[in-house]
C-alpha cells in the first residue's frame, strides 16, 4: 500500500508539473491584417492630357460583400498608355512588391479585337520578359468595345509565353492567379 501512495504522488506531481507548462495567453493576438490580400486594382489609360481611370475594388477578400467595379469609356482609334497600380488592405501599396519580384510576376491581358487592335508591354524584368504593370494599346476604330480581362500571375513560367502574343495567358504558363478581373470597356467617340 505504501508503494501505491508513492505511485499516486508521482502521478499527481507529474500532472501538476506538466500542467504548469501552459503558456500565458491572456492576449490572444489575432492577425487582423491580411498582408498579401489584394483589395484594389487601379488601371489608368492615358493619351496625351486625357486620363481614364478604371478600378476594381473588393475589400473583404473572399467575404460575401460584392466588389465595386468602375468601368470606363475610351475613344476609338486612340493609343493609350496603361499604368496599373495595386493596393492591399488599408491602402497598402502592393505595386512595389510586384516590381521587386518582377521575375515572379506578370499581368496577362485578354481582349477582343473589337476593343484593342494592338498591344505591347512597356516594362520588362531582369530577364527581358514582360511584367505588365505598364502597357500600350491602340483602340479599334469602331465604336462598341468589349471585355478586358487582366490576370496577375505569381510564378508564371514566362518562357511559355507565346512569342507573338506574350500577353495571352495559356495553361502551360501555370503559376497562381493573384487577381483575375474583368472590365467592361466601352469605345465611344
Amino acid at each position, binding site marked *: 500500500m505504501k508503494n501505491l501512495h508513492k505511485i499516486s504522488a508521482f502521478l499527481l506531481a507529474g500532472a501538476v508539473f506538466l500542467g504548469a507548462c501552459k503558456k500565458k495567453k491572456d492576449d490572444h493576438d489575432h492577425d487582423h491584417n491580411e498582408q498579401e490580400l489584394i483589395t484594389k486594382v487601379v488601371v489608368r489609360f492615358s493619351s496625351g492630357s486625357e486620363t481614364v481611370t478604371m478600378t476594381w475594388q473588393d475589400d473583404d477578400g473572399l467575404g460575401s460583400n460584392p466588389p465595386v467595379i468602375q468601368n470606363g469609356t475610351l475613344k476609338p482609334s486612340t493609343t493609350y498608355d496603361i499604368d496599373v497600380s495595386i493596393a492591399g488592405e488599408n491602402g497598402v501599396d502592393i505595386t512595389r512588391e510586384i516590381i521587386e519580384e518582377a521575375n515572379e510576376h506578370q499581368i496577362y491581358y485578354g481582349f477582343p479585337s473589337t476593343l484593342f487592335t494592338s498591344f505591347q508591354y512597356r516594362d520588362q524584368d531582369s530577364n527581358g520578359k514582360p511584367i505588365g504593370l505598364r502597357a500600350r494599346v491602340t483602340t479599334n476604330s469602331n465604336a462598341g468595345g468589349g471585355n478586358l480581362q487582366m490576370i496577375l500571375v505569381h*510564378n508564371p513560367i514566362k518562357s511559355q509565353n507565346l512569342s507573338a502574343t506574350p500577353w495571352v495567358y495559356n495553361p502551360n504558363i501555370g503559376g497562381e492567379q493573384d487577381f483575375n478581373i474583368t472590365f467592361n470597356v466601352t469605345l465611344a467617340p
Partner: protein
Amino acid sequence: MKSIFLLVWGFLWGELYAQCTASIHGHIFQKDTKISLPEVQVRIEPLGKVLQTNIEGEFALENVCEGEYQVFLEKEGFLPLQIVLQLKKNEHFHKDIFLQADNQQIASVEVLGNMEKPLSTQTQSFLSRQELELSRGKTLGETLKNITGVYTFSTGAGISKPIIHGLHSQRIMILNNGIRQEGQQWGEEHAPEIDVFSAEQVSVIKGAAGVRYGSDAMGGVVILNPLPLPTEKKLHGKVYLIGHSNNRMGNLALQMEKAFGKGWAWRWQGSAKRGGDFRSPTYVLSNTGMQELNFAATLGVERKKWQAEAYFSRYDAEIGILRAAHTGNINDLTVSISRPQPWYVAPFTYEIQNPRQKIVHYLAKLSSKITLNHLGILSLQYALQWNDRKEFDIRRGGRSTIPALSLQLQTHTLDAILEHHAWKNFRGSLGLNILWQDNYNVPGTGITPLLPNFTNFSQGLFWIERFVKPAYEIEWGLRYDFRHTEVQAVRNRLRLTPNYQFHWKTVTVGYWYRKWRNVVIKTNLATTVRPPHTAELFSQGLHLGIGNIQEGLLFEGGSLNPDKPFALEKSYKWISTVQYQKNAWQWEISPYHQWIDNFIYATPTDIRLTIQGYFPVFSYVQKDVVLRGIDAMQKFYQGNWQWQSKFSYLNAFVRKNKEAVINMPPLRWENKIAWERKSWGKLQNTSFFVNVLYVAKQNNAPRVVEPTRFGNISTEEKQQILSEGSFDFMPAPSAYWLWSIGASTTYKGFTTNVQVENLANTIYRDYLNRWRYYANEIGRNFILQLSYIF
C-alpha cells in the same frame, strides 16, 4: 429483434436440456508479451478431444460432464503445458493461460490478439504481423489499408488519413498507446502525427465505439499499441533499414528493450526517414519530398499488485506539397484539369520547398494499473500532447519564410477506468474521461487564421457491462458526456467570445454468439453523438487545392453569426459480423448500416465574385445521411499455398433526396496468392506473393460542373447550378487494377523483404486523393526491407 430473442432463447433451451452442462473455456497468451496465441493445439483428456485456438487465442469445449480433466497445450516454439482441472456440474471453467516461448526472440510470433478487449461484441479487425512488417516505412494510412473496409483519404502519396466505412478526420479516433491522438485532425490534408514504427499491434474497431471512447469514435477506432515491456534481463531489439525506389526514400529504425532490477524495464525506439519527390509513371511530382525524425522512450515497473509506466515520444515531420496543387483557386484548377500533366515539373530533388508543412507532436504519458482486492483492476492514465503545426506557402514580398498557418494545440487527458472482477457471469467496467485542450494561433502570420483560438473542456462517464457465457455474450453500455467550448472569434475586426455547452448521452447494445466450433456471430447497435468541431462551426477560407471557399455552420449569408442555431450530429450504427472457420477455409462477412442525423457536410450555397474571379462557396450544412455497406474477407489454405480475398463496398447518400455524398470510397476488391514455407533448409518463413487490387470507379459521385463555367457567369446560370445541389469539378477517376509482387525470408533473425508495387507502372488517379485534379498517382516502386532481430 424477434429473431435475436429466439436465438437467445433457443440457446438457453439447448443448454438446459443437455446431459452434461459444464464447459471449458481458455484464452492462451504468450507469457512475456501477453499476446494472444492462435493455432495452439489443445488436447483434452480423457475425452481425447483435440482443438485449436482461434485467431484470438481462445478455445472452448461445451457440454462437458463433471469430473477431472487434463488439458495439454502445445505449439511450435513454445514449452508445452499441462493443466489439471476439476469440473463441477454446470461449471463454466474459464482460465487465462500463459505459454512460455522456448526461444526468446521477439516478433517470432504472429501478433493477432489484443490485450485490450473493450467491447467484445464489436467487430474488430487486426493487422497480421506479416502485413504490418511488409508495410513498415509507409504512412499510417497506407498501413491500415490492409484491413478490409479501411481506405485512406490522401493528399498525394505523403499525406494520408484513414477512412473507416466512409468516415474520417474528426469522426474516427486514433488511440495511440492508449491515448486519444489530438492533433489538427479536422484538416483534410493533416495526417495523423504518429510514428508507425512505435506500434506493434494494429487493429481497427469498425463499429461505433462512442460509449467507450466518446464522440470521435462515431466511425470507428484505430488502435495502435506497442508490445508490453519485456521481462527478460537481456538486451533485445530490432533494426530496420528500408529503401523505396520511387521517391528514393531511405528509412532507418531502431528499437531496444531490456528488463532490469526488480520488475523494471525500459524501451527506446527511434526512426528517421528521408524521401524526395515521388514519381508518377510519366513525370516527377515536384515538391512531394518528406522527412521525419521520431523517437519514443518507455520506462515501466511491474509488481504483483500494480504496474506503472512512463512514456514520452516526439514526432517531427516536414512534408512537401505538390507545387502545382498550391493555391487551387478555381482558375488554377481550370488550368490543371485542362492539362495532361502538372504545370510545374522539375527534376527530382530531396529538397522541400514551399508549400510545405512542418509538424512536431509530443506525447508524454503516465499510466498505472492497480489490482484492488475486492473490486477489480483500476487503470489510471494522464497524458499531455503538444502539437505544433506550421504551414508555409508561396508568398509575395519575402514572406515565404513566415508560416501562413501556425497552430499550437495543447491537450491534457485524464482517464480512470475500473474493470471490476468477474461477478457470476458479469464482467464490465466503469470509466471517466476528462479532456482539456487549448488551440492557439501563433501571431505574426499576416493571414487571418482559418481556425480561431478555442478551449475545450470535456468530461465523459461510461459504464459497460457484459454477461459472459462460453458460447454467447450480451453487452450493453451507457455514457454521459459534457463539453464546454469557448471560442475567440473575430467578426468585422471585433473580438467575440462565444461559449457553447453540450450535453449528450449514448447507448450501445451488443450480442455475440458462437455456434459449434466454427461459427461466430457478432451484432452491435450503437448510438454516438458528436458536437461540431470548432473548425466546422467557424472556419472560413479558401479550401486549399479544391478551388472553393468553405464556410462554417455559423455563417449566414457570408458573415459570422455565433448565435445561429445548430444541432449535434447523431449516429446510429448497426454492424454484424459472421465468422466461419473450418479446415482450410476461413471467411468473415460484416454488413453495416449507419444513419447519421444532422451530418455536417459541405454543399454549394453561392457563387461569389472576388478579385480572384468567381468562386463557388461550399457551406457546412446539416443533413441526414445514410452510409451502408459490406466488408467481406476470405482465406483459403492448401499446403504451402494461401489465397486471401478482401472486398468492401459502401453506398452513401443524403436521406431526403438521395444525393450522393462527395469523397466516399468506391468498391474495392483485393486478392493475394501466396506461397509460404515455415522452414526451408536454414531459411525460415519464406514466402512469395502476388497481389492484385481492383478499385472501381465511384459511380455514386456528385454531378460534374466544369470550372470553366464559372468564368463569366450569368445570374440565371448561377441560380441553375445552385438549384441542382452538390457538384464536383471533374468526373470521378476511372477504375483501375494494380499489381504487386513480393518475396520474404528470414535467416538467423535476419529478414529480407523485396516488394514491387504498381508492377505494371499503371497510370491512374484515385477518387480519394485530393490531388486527383492535378496529377497521376505514383508509378512503380521497388521496396527493399532489411531487418534484424537481436
